[in-house]
């Protein structure tokens, strides 16, 4: 599963945060690069703030995304594409045509859930060109005390795509690490809980490719 696309149909769902932290986690096991295909350039900005030269490399997307992925895969085992917050964006449709896995973070909020309904259609359309495309929803920013968080797993099943067993909780460490240009893996004990859940998600993602 060398190409992973972080896609979504709504801003603020956590695509960039997940891209960067997922890449940092995978980098512990293998070589990985991130391509920032979102014109907002948040992943590139995160990398620019990083003082650690060994942190995950982030590349600016060029016009030929598939060729760029092929080129990067000569040097890296995995390439993560951080896509814009729309399934209709040309970058998203293009990336889905050659990705192995589409990861779709979704928050337990009605607006996020409504916006994510359209993803299944986009994945189906992409499968006309890319039969092997797999997709997985990741429940993100879960707050166990809220009713919506408790109900989100049931609601998300309406979308018609597989859902990762691991849900990521809402944690301040994701924001504070970004401020320092770091991933939660660089935050020591403060990032331990976030690291644990990300490691579980990474395991699921890697196994998802071998099912």
């Amino acid at each position, binding site marked *: 599963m060398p190409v992973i696309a972080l896609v979504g149909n709504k801003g603020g769902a956590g695509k960039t945060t997940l891209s960067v932290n997922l890449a940092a986690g995978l980098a512990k096991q293998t070589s990985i690069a991130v391509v920032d295909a979102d014109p907002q350039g948040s992943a590139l900005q995160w990398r620019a703030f990083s003082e650690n030269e060994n942190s995950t490399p982030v590349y600016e997307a060029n016009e030929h995304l598939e060729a760029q992925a092929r080129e990067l895969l000569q040097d890296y085992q995995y390439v993560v594409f951080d896509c814009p917050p729309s399934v209709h964006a040309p970058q998203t449709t293009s990336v889905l045509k050659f990705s192995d896995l589409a990861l779709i973070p979704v928050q337990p909020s009605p607006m996020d859930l*409504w916006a994510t309904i359209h993803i299944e*259609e986009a994945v189906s359309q992409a499968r006309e060109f890319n039969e092997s495309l797999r997709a997985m929803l990741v429940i993100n920013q879960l707050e166990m005390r809220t*009713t919506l968080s408790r109900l989100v797993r049931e609601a998300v099943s*309406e979308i018609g795509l597989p859902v990762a067993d691991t849900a990521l909780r809402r944690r301040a460490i994701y924001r504070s690490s970004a401020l320092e240009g770091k991933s939660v893996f660089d935050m020591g004990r403060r990032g331990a809980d976030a690291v644990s859940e990300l490691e579980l998600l990474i395991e699921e993602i890697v196994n998802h490719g071998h099912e």
Partner: protein
Amino acid sequence: MATNDKTRQKLVDTMRRTKVGASKKATPKTKAQPKQEASKPAPAAKPKPAVQKKQQARPAITSSPVSGDAYQSTRRVWPD
């Protein structure tokens, strides 16, 4: 529990309605085109009377009170 059930029902219901809305949007655009063509003459005809009414209404308001009563017009000349 009852609140949870209501929220669950509402959430699932709104998602299903959104899904139906999404699939309706994806249905052929050709159906909408004849409707637009058929309705074109109607909006074109409507604005004209609306403009005329406004033009008629304005003189009706301005012409009546000013010249009618000398006392009232004096009050308007001498504000505080």
